[in-house]
């Protein structure tokens, strides 16, 4: 079986019913997607499969043969963040960090299919993602900010400890 992960093609040796999550983490050492419940209930393992958000714990490898997989690592890096990553960072949408990989990939996919979601639509889209720390408000704020076109200088955010970081185009 073959899959492309974040642009790199891999031949997989794991058995066909291995979950995509376990193959990513244990065979390919792509550890961004997290093991939260292995039952599809928490959202931490969410990745993009051919552009669609999926629970990697629920996908047997045999179902994703030939697929293009994007994980949180494939969206951006600390110095070159995807706008959604920068927004989560700026709006404190991540506290312990464990739900963020799933939340962010699902949010990116949401804006792909609905560039101007209402707050309620964001809530519904992230309804299957559990965050035990933030209470969700900051997460939804971050998604809204990206939807209304705020952009962030990710590098600035990581470097400017002690300074004040402001998103470009933010009203406040």
């Amino acid at each position: 079986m073959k899959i492309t992960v974040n642009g790199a093609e891999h031949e997989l040796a794991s058995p066909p019913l291995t979950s995509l999550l376990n193959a990513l983490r244990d065979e390919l050492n792509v550890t961004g997607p997290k093991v939260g419940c292995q039952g599809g209930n928490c959202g931490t393992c969410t990745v993009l499969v051919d552009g669609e958000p999926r629970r990697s714990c629920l996908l047997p490898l045999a179902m994703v043969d030939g697929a293009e997989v994007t994980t949180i690592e494939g969206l951006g890096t600390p110095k070159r963040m995807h706008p959604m990553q920068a927004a989560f960072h700026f709006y404190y949408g991540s506290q312990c960090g464990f739900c963020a990989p799933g939340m962010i990939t699902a949010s990116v996919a949401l804006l792909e299919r609905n560039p101007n979601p209402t707050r309620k639509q964001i809530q519904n889209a992230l309804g299957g993602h559990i965050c035990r720390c933030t209470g969700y408000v900051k997460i939804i704020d971050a998604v809204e900010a990206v939807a209304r076109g705020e952009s962030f200088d990710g590098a600035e955010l990581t470097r400017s400890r002690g300074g004040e970081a402001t998103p470009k185009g933010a009203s406040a």
Partner: protein
Amino acid sequence: MKAIGARLPRYEGAGHVTGQTLFVDDIRLPQGNLWAKALRSPHHSARITSFDASKAASLPGVHAIITHADVPRNVFGHLAFLGVPADEPLLAVDEVRYLGQPIAAVAADSEEAAQAAVDAIEVEYEEREPLFDMRKAFDPDAPKAHHWGNWLPYFGGELENAGPDRRRIRKGDLEWAFEKADTIVKGVYRPAAIEHAPLETQVALAVPEPSGRMVVYSCTQAMHFSAGHVAAHLGVPLNGVKLVSSAVGGGFGGKVDSSSDTIAAVLALKTERPVKWRWTREEEFLCSGTRAAWHIEVADAVTKDGWILGRKTLTLHDAGAYLRHSSYATTKHTFHCAGAYTIPNVSFLAFAVFTNRVPSTAMRGFGVTSTSFLAEMQVNRIAKVLDLDPYEVRLKNANRIGDTMPNTVVLKDPSTVPVVQAIAEHAGIELAPEYKAMTWEPRTGAVLPEWLVEQQAKGGQD
């Protein structure tokens, strides 16, 4: 002082949002590691009548199976440093007291091989009637949940000179309060146990160094506390272990006493190989500590205009099968039974009760959230019974600067008044002018009746 008031990016934020933060399960060692699984009790209460791991040990890929006999110091108390005696074995010896209690652990080449070995361990149990309901713990014929008895036999001091078997706080003259009261308002509150359910289950990676030092990559919330634990169970001084703090994927108190660190370390000690143990979601729910369940009975002596003259409480704290931090939680709870209010005459009584449930542990406001619940519910109930505004009852009885708490602490900056005023404002409640103007300054003037001032001045503690 550039940081004050500034909007600072989170230190770990960039790693979190890019998936680059390393949690314990994300750590890969160049030499690889063995994998651990635990044999856990399938019963709430049972004697272990036979244990045979010989078949399991011969299975392919199995490197070690440990039992209590392999743990250098099997029984260690979480509050040992406070002089509280130990009661909990790391691995069960001849009995199990809660469902999910670890009895043995396996290190193998894969999790599947480790689990297969766990499944192949032959154990026979003699089941006993479990105790689940704290209220039945005091019945003469109640099942025995703990070798000390069904409730903690001492508070403070060593077990030998046991001391009181209950936590008691008294202040003022409760009899006077109940005589003077216009109404007695009673309540029973039973906050249930709560699982923290962190998104990251407990994971530990123990790596033995050639020097003999044990390195543990831990998801603990309490690094030094856990280091002490691991060292104690391994029977080595503190410098014999090194705990590496990894990111914590949510803890909320539940990762204060993580036995995963220690059991992984004992397996690493025995195999001389790195060992990783990651709990399944099912284990996290079934076997990790929870917030304690509580049973609280309250009687308040109140005047018809809403003064709480006195409060009497009886609390049962569900410690679960072992003590862990329950004496601390019970004590803290008892100190705070007046909530954010100044009640001149109180008698608070609490027991830490053992049951055959998972041992309870810290969770956000250790022992105190239950007091906030009881105190706020009581205020609402008093206001309802007397047909008063609940905000005014709160402000009337609010903690003020200089008030003495039941535990003799004199308050320097109690925020009850501004907090209640702010809540009223946000809720669109128009307070009467005297309550709107109220501050946290020491009580004086018209709002406070003379006779209560005298009572306030009394104080005293058990």
